[in-house]
């Protein structure tokens, strides 16, 4: 139809979003109907024939148009809306795949949980899920209030300090779905994106297995310099790469950074050039984010770091 159509909210990719999409269309129809009635009445009131105007000009119109008519429409909507709310918040059974997502100023910490609720795989700003089954997200915050929202998969839910909110998402088919923080969280709130990648169940199993059983192979020759620099330049103070001495927890986990689609929480495509740019001066790209600029690093050093990080799949 035009660029941007259908908008994500009306282009659902899973059962939770599609129920809301249906509701949206019903609401649009309701609004169009009521607006048409009001405009027609207004037209008659201003330009209509005299006898029509007489009919419109009494208290009865208020009782019908202003009370009875909205009452019927609203009652229907209320019952439908609440039933849908109930349906969408059916109790969580407990055997769903669980992922803990923590909102941080201005990125997302992701931890996949095992059946006992232990964090087994760490990642950031990106969530891999199997298509065709519901996933439960444990939403929490490390600092201020954020809101988790991937419109094609579900409505949004806030991440409130001191609370843990549970949310379900589901994608029917494999695909990539964008999302963004929806609660103003200061500074670069505008640049706090998120990506959900739905896989065929088999592919998802393989991905998780490979991450669970990840054995650190010796760094390829091209990446050795980068590996040393990663510790020397101080990256390791804030970032963790599993299996190495880098164990910082302040910033995003970089164990799988090489396989991520985006950098800087959903704002840049991930390639060597953008990685170098981000490390060199992320402040120019995402002002006021928590990572200091490393303008003292030479371009050779940046290349080495980027090469090393690229290899972290």
């Amino acid at each position, binding site marked *: 139809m035009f660029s941007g159509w259908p908008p994500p*909210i009306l282009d659902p990719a899973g059962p939770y979003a599609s129920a809301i999409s249906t509701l949206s269309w019903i609401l649009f129809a*309701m609004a169009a109907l009521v607006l048409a009635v009001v405009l027609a009445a207004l037209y008659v009131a201003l330009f209509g024939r005299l006898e029509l105007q007489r009919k419109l000009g009494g*208290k009865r119109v208020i009782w019908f148009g202003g009370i009875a008519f909205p009452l019927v429409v*609203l009652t229907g909507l209320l019952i439908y809306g609440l039933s849908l709310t109930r349906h969408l918040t059916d109790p969580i059974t407990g055997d769903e795949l669980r992922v803990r997502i923590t909102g941080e100023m201005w990125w997302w910490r992701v931890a996949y949980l095992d059946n006992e609720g232990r964090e087994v795989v760490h990642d950031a700003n990106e969530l891999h899920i199997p298509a065709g089954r519901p996933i439960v997200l444990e939403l929490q915050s490390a600092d201020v209030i954020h809101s988790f929202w991937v419109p094609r998969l579900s409505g949004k839910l*806030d991440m409130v300090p001191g609370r843990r909110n549970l949310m379900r998402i589901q994608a029917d088919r494999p695909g990539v779905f964008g999302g963004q923080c929806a609660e103003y969280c200061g500074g670069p709130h505008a640049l706090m994106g998120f990506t959900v990648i739905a896989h065929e169940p088999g592919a998802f199993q393989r991905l998780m297995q490979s991450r669970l059983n990840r054995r650190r192979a010796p760094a390829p020759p091209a990446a050795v310099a980068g590996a040393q620099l990663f510790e020397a330049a101080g990256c390791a103070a804030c970032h963790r790469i599993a299996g190495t001495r880098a164990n910082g927890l302040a910033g995003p986990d970089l164990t799988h950074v090489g396989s991520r689609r985006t950098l800087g929480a959903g704002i840049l495509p991930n390639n060597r050039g953008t990685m170098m740019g981000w490390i060199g001066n992320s402040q120019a790209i995402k002002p006021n984010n928590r990572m200091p600029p490393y303008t003292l690093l030479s371009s050779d050093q940046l290349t080495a770091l980027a090469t090393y990080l690229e290899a972290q799949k």
Partner: protein
Amino acid sequence: MTSETGFDPRLLERFPTAEARPDSEVDDLNRIWAAPRGWRMVTIVNNNYVGIWYVAAAFLFFLLAGVLALAIRTQLALPLLGVLPQETYNQFFTMHGTLMMFLFAVPIMEAIGVLLLPQMLAARDLPFPRLSAYAFWAYFIGGLCFFASIFVGLAPNGGWFMYPPLTSMTYSPGINADFWLLGIGFIEISAIAGAIEILVGILKTRAPGMTLARMPLFAWAMLVFAGMILIAFPAVILGTLLLELERALNWPFFDSTRGGDPLLWQHLFWFFGHPEVYIIFLPAAGLVSMMVSSLAKTELVGYQLIVLAFLATGFISFGVWAHHMFTTGMPMLSVGFFSAASMAVSIPAGIQVFSWIATLAIGKPVFNTPTLFVIGGLVTFVIGGLTGVMVAMVPFDWQVHDTHFIVAHLHYVLIGGAVFPVFAAFYYWFGMTSRRALSERLGKWIFWLMFAGMHLTFLPMHLTGLMGMPRRVYTYLPGMDWEWTNLLSTAGAFTLAAGVALFLFDIARRFRFTVEDDAGNVYGGGTLEWLPTGLYSSRSIPVVRSRSPLWDNPALSGEVEQGRHFLPNSATGLRETLITSPIRAEPQYLQIMMGPSVWPLLGAVFTAGFFLLLTVQAYTPAIICLPLAILAILRWLWDTDRPVQQAQVDVGAGVMLPTYVTGPSSHGWWAIVCVLVVAFMIFLMAVFGYLFVYGIHPEYWVSPGGQWWALPIVASWAASAVLVLYGWRLLGRDGSSTWSPTAAILFACGFAVTAIAADWFSWRAQGLDPELTAQGAFSHALLALQAQLVAVVVLMGGYLAARTARGLVTRPSNTTFDVVSLFLLYTAAQGSAMALLLRFFPGIG
């Protein structure tokens, strides 16, 4: 015939009197009500002047906030623009929302109320002219200083809703947030002052015979408006107080790591914030109801239903606050209640819309500028209302909450529901205060520019939201398909601005302030504000026999001008107005009113100084300002409550009324009751907060111990209350000496101080630390609230003593004495309730 007060309704039949009154009485009125000139104009308290200043100031803030909006729209026109840097943008959008809501929308309604209500009700002025002046100056000075923070980059940047923990010391260490908390907290106080003024004005100063069923609908709307302010604003005052305490003293009300809860702020904020929308909408609906009837040249259809709609809106709007919190993970059942109430509140809106349409249908509307604005506003508001019903549906809200869909929705509601009606009102009532009316030809241009601009800005914005663009983002990435709708919105914003600019141009050209030889009733309204007026309003106060007296009795203007109705002169030679009963508007007494004074202005300057200096952490000057502000306010009060020589005067046609009345029918009594309602709401909200955080994090709570302390504390409060009652009796008893009633009050003050001191000491003894847990913080906050009341009580005691010394306390009853006594009784009640709550909840251990 029934009477409310014992006043014989047949006395009203004497009016209009047969004889015209001498013109010399008009000269007297002119002399008595004359406004100071030159630099002394700042001492004016008359509503004609204060009202127009107030409107102008509110409009100024509308323009300033509008300029910020243009900057915001420019920045968002295309992805990744650098017009406004991130931090500047965050300050701009915070200020845009804050200015529009706190410094434009509510004040403009109060301003229009101050300007129009006395004339509409045919009162000489509002009952507390100096309070209006104080409210205006406090708002104007405070607002300007608050706005100035943007020039030095210190403007608040946490959003107009200021959610902690983003606004806590940890994440907002600068003083930006303090500007919001102290600046807005202070402006709220001014809004409450205005609301008390308006509430008492509407209930007590209507023209005789103007029963509740004959009141102009704007007055009905303002009555509900003022009542809602008294209930809703305390929530945000308490919220700002707690957040400021958390920031300044590290008391963890909202900090979840110490047992507080960030959602408490959201509850407090929206308990104010959603009624706020209706607080803005109701006066506008009142204006529209009156204009629709005049413009269609017929009585409004369904007057009574509209009154019902106003009242119902006032009530139900207090049950919808949490629909701003559907995505916070509240219990589903509560979510359902708020969803249901949010839908129910649209029924009163439906009543209003169809009543206006019905009136337009039987009338003969002419398409002049106010009509266009009224109809444009109606259409826009209906669309906003419909998207409002959509977002009341919980699952739909989960999707669109905090997106540009909401931005579009709220602008439809507020522009359609308030801005367009206010512009219609500007046109409609312009002739009351200006020598020349506004241009109709330009007016149509202005309307169409604004109307087209508004829809061009906000209609595509719904789609922007559905496409997934969140609110409050300083930029967005290319490739999201958000470019073209954003570009349209920006173009629309500038079109809207062009309309407003044209309006400014026309105002500059045509506006010439006047009270007497104004352009007059251009649109043919039938209510009392279109009587011929001077600074004293109408020459005599007409007996009202219908809803549109000027239509039903074309001779009324002449009768009023000849002085053939109530109070054709100044009966006492002072400024005065007729006080009538709240339901049937039966004359009760003649109120002596205050004239020009510099003290309200000085009071406002020092109050503003206190709050603003506190914000910039200039503690010494701030501490100096506080007593100065109190002195200025006491000085202005010193002139009040002075009975005159004549105990009874003839207010026309031989009707005799007293000039001094105390007790529940006096305007002073009503005002202090309003103040106590505010105090009680603040206390109630604090108790709610106390219980709320306990409910969320009971694991942080301990039984405070030392329950026996409650005994001496409550006993002290009881002693204080008993002494007050005894003092009241002494005042009425002839035999007692001059000082004995006041002495009883002073002893009561002493017991109040004892009680609060004991309470404070007991907490120190228990060692409950305010910085450690939310329980400690809340206990201390409640204590601090109570200590504030006690401080006021002590001041009042001193003031009463001073008045006693000067022989100003009348026997057998006295308004100042009543006010102090009522305040003391309330303080004692609240103090006892608090002492018991803190010690026996959450349990004895």
